[in-house]
């Protein structure tokens, strides 16, 4: 068996390339690379149907929560500003237009006995009495 020295072995692999391969290689590589970069699309995350429904429901829910309450709904007096201005406004705007019967009904709710008043009671005096003796929630219930 003949001993082989590494130095005796060829330094050439014997592999070859097609004719003019390296002459055309640069332009082809650059073109393909730039095209690859241009085609790089942003990643799109597809949501399944349930996620879409959940997202839509959340948006609708937030929208409804942010909507102002409708007029005609029961007023929550706790949300109202309890100020003299509010009460005065209510007296001037609502009670002044209220017929006498409505005012008499409001007195019945109070601790006073309506029969203690004669029929010729002064409306202004009555309004003053109501302002002093009834709270805002009672006043509002007669709207």
């Amino acid at each position, binding site marked *: 068996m003949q001993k*082989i020295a*590494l130095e005796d072995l060829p*330094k050439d*692999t014997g*592999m070859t*390339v097609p004719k003019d391969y390296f002459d055309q290689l*640069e332009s082809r*590589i650059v073109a393909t690379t730039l095209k690859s970069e241009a085609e790089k699309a942003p990643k799109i995350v597809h949501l399944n149907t349930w996620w879409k429904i959940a997202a839509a429901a959340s948006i609708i829910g937030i929208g409804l929560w942010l909507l102002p309450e409708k007029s005609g709904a029961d007023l929550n007096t706790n949300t109202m500003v309890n100020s003299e201005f509010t009460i005065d406004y209510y007296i001037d705007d609502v009670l002044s237009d209220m017929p006498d019967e409505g005012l008499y009904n409001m007195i019945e709710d109070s601790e006073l006995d309506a029969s203690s008043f004669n029929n010729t009671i002064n409306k202004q005096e009555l309004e003053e009495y109501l302002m002093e003796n009834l709270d805002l929630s009672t006043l509002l219930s007669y709207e």
Partner: protein
Amino acid sequence: MIVKNKEEETLITALQDPYTKEAAFRELVRTYQERLYWHIRKIVLDHDDADDVLQETFIKIFRNITSFQGNSSLFTWMYRIATNESITHINKKSRRNKISDEEYNELALKNLESDVYFEGDAIQLKLQKAIATLPDRQRMVFNMRYFDEIPYKEMSKILEVTVGGLKSTYHIASQKIKLFLEDNETF
């Protein structure tokens, strides 16, 4: 031919500047295409495969050049990418054909014999067969040292192995090749 450090610095700066990147990339390809091709070709053996891997390598270089820190030379960095892409290519093809990497290498070597792009003589073919029997790391070290004559220090950065380890690997690989050729002598 390895580009000198100052020229390499200029090239890197141009590659990392969006306005000059394309022109600098052309220069990079022109300078390194052959050397990278032959490194890849010696791993994958087939010309068409080497062509594909080379393209992938340059795409990766183009995409990642902005993050190149300069911890090694540009060539060392590109060589490493080319090495990894070659191994990835072999792994992918093996999995696609449902065979092991070793079986794939044997198949590639068998095809080399009848490959139109192999014009080597009997001893050159026998040498390739001997190299193909080596494990991946030994094969790579042998090719880089024997054919490419890459200094151990640079090889250490490419393969991330110590110089001492590389010398030892090359010595073992050389001994195996000599034994293979002696057992299958064609002289």
